[in-house]
């Protein structure tokens, strides 16, 4: 009896987790609660939304390689973290919702994995995201005055002034005679440096460098002391916006370059969702019929357990939370097979015990008891491979491994505990 109550409570809880955010019942509406509590200093928050991977909702997956050549060994972790934070700022400025940015290490290689869900047409922005964006102002090298007429072209003709992107308060797109420019506002410190620079170089050309490339080389007309400057280049509005965005986010501490990129169109994602729901339902229905046809009333109990398996595993996926990918769904569907396997093992064992002349009640208990060794050993071997998959993989492989592990764990519970409780319930009644 205690077990039945326990199972019922678990099912109700799982049902609450799995239900849609709002459920309309006639004129009433039920709202799904959120999980939000603190364990010591750690806050646990789950909105209980099903997180979909990029292959299901469409989006862009990027892997950047960080160039650590100029970073002292002790500062690497700090530098990669700062780069991560900076990327996050840039992406937030781009207006992409819920980006996931992770760091990863493969051997001595440091990588940043960026996932941008649902992002469309951001291909051009991607190059922007990966730019180092080191802004600095330089003045002519030689003492001999250079006039605007013979504009120095090479970067060797300029020398750094110490005024860089760090001295920037904010960059904004502005319009100058209908042309897009990027307006800069300096911090007080930057304003002072900029005043010095312009006072010293009246009539000369100073250069604004971005990542060691000249983007603008204006001639100083008068000393500017109010801490405001303008970069005029032949910007399109789009380019000006992106430059302003980069300058506002600040320069990357380490240069990065793209080593992997995957885009999935949103339509393909939606198609995949529809198809996998259909496939999972058909697969489930066929297994249901199969068990019913083969094992009669016991099969029906296994089917009930299987329904609970589905409910519980989706609840666990939502609670952890695991990002569901296409392969992940395949993992869940595949473990339907494993969930049933435990029941088949038990039922076959019960049949055998009955054949050997045991009374029904003993056969039931022995069936569970004796099948347990096989179930345990075979599931542990599956867990070993799933664990290795998790270690080996990233992205969709990891999603598959995770759902497989969840599937195996939940299926052990449903196919043993739940089936046994239901069996006992029915056979106890029938004896009365």
């Amino acid at each position, binding site marked *: 009896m205690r077990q039945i109550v326990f199972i019922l409570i678990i099912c109700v809880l799982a049902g609450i987790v799995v239900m849609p955010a709002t459920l309309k019942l006639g004129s009433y509406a039920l709202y799904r609660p959120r999980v939000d509590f603190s364990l010591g200093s750690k806050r646990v928050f789950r909105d209980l939304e099903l997180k979909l991977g990029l292959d299901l909702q469409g989006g862009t997956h990027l892997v950047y390689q960080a160039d650590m050549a100029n970073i002292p060994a002790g500062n690497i972790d700090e530098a990669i973290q700062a780069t991560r934070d900076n990327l996050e700022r840039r992406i937030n400025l781009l207006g992409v919702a819920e980006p996931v940015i992770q760091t990863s290490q493969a051997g001595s290689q440091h990588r940043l994995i960026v996932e941008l869900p649902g992002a469309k047409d951001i*291909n051009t922005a991607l190059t922007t995201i990966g730019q180092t964006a080191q802004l600095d102002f330089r003045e002519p090298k030689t003492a001999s005055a250079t006039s605007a007429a013979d504009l120095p072209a090479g970067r060797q003709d300029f020398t750094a002034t110490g005024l860089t992107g760090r001295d920037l308060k904010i960059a904004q797109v502005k319009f100058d005679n209908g042309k897009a420019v990027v307006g800069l506002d300096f911090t007080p410190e930057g304003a002072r440096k900029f005043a010095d620079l312009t006072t010293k170089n009246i009539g000369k050309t100073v250069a604004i460098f971005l990542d060691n490339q000249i983007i603008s080389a204006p001639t100083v007309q008068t000393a500017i002391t109010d801490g405001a400057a303008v970069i005029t280049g032949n910007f399109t509005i789009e380019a000006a916006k992106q430059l302003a965005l980069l300058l506002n986010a600040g320069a990357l501490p380490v240069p990065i370059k793209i080593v992997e*990129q995957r885009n999935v169109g949103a339509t*393909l994602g939606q198609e995949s969702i529809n198809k996998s729901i259909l496939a999972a339902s058909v697969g489930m229905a066929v297994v249901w019929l199969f068990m019913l046809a083969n094992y009669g009333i016991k099969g029906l109990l296994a089917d009930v357990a299987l329904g609970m398996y589905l409910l519980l595993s989706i609840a666990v996926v939502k609670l952890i939370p695991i990002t569901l990918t296409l392969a992940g769904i*395949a993992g869940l569907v595949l473990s339907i097979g494993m969930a049933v*396997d435990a029941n088949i093992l038990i039922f076959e064992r019960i049949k055998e015990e009955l054949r050997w002349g045991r009374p029904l009640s003993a056969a039931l208990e022995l069936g569970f008891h004796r099948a347990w060794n096989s179930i345990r050993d075979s599931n542990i*071997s599956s867990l070993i491979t799933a664990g290795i*998959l998790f270690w080996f993989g990233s992205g969709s492989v990891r999603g598959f491994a995770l759902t497989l592990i969840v599937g195996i764990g939940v299926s052990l519970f449903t196919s043993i505990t739940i089936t046994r409780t239901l069996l006992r319930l029915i056979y106890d009644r029938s004896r009365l």
Partner: protein
Amino acid sequence: MTDHASDTIDFMRWKWAYFAFSLLILVPGVISLVAYKLQLAIDFTGGTLLEIHFQQALDNSHIRDVAKSLRLELSSIQPSGENTYLLRLKPITAEQNEELKKALGSNVEEKRFETVGPVVGKELTQKALAAVGIASIAIVVYIAWAFRHVPKPYSSWKFGISAVAALLHDVFVVLGVFSLLGHFYHVEIDALFVTAMLTVIGFSVHDTIVVFDRVRENLPKMADKSFTEVVNFSLTETLVRSLNTSMTVILTLTALLLFGGEPIRWFIVALLVGITSGTYSSIFNAAPLLVLWESHAKKH
């Protein structure tokens, strides 16, 4: 439990036939593996995969010309649906991708764009090999440990190694089939294929363990019987379960194959082939191998 023998199927009588059947499947696959190797996807080799949809049908040669004019190295074009094409190229950047799409026309819809650098590909290859190797070793060790109570003079290591032999059988069946599929239908193997491979390994061992477990249980009970008889009896007992379990898995996979999405089609095929092979090998390879080995050991 009086008459073990009456309805016991004499599986072991045909053991050489089972091995012969396995060879029949394995040999063409292995020859194909040696001759044609495997078609590796960009996950391993590095490169770009671009899936694009057009409003109207397009000529392959037109796409080739456009790619050529942009100096992109296009290695193959494959139709992947109505007016949809899968292009494979040497790695290109996002800007080059934009240029290509612009050059192909205004109503081009990008369904998928994937670029993998060569370094990442090489790492994945190493990791995949390591994963399969570690999984095999872990399983031998686990089975040897799980079967440590096998009564003397039988050795738990023989159980473990026979299970892994069956597992390698399944691995090579799948690899062989995909080598042939790759050669004749340009099916590529990617990171998901490695996943399927490891899952097949898990399942294959799962099946073998159920059979071996029964052998272990029956050994002390049937002390007066020969090892071969014990195995025959155990196989008979577990046959229905093995077939039923494999049926359910094969049914769910078939549903995924028929109704699931295109992106995981070959992943499902790999699982189907592997799990079917796994069911066969646990009954018809692992158990006979164990019998051969144990009876050989007894003679000495």
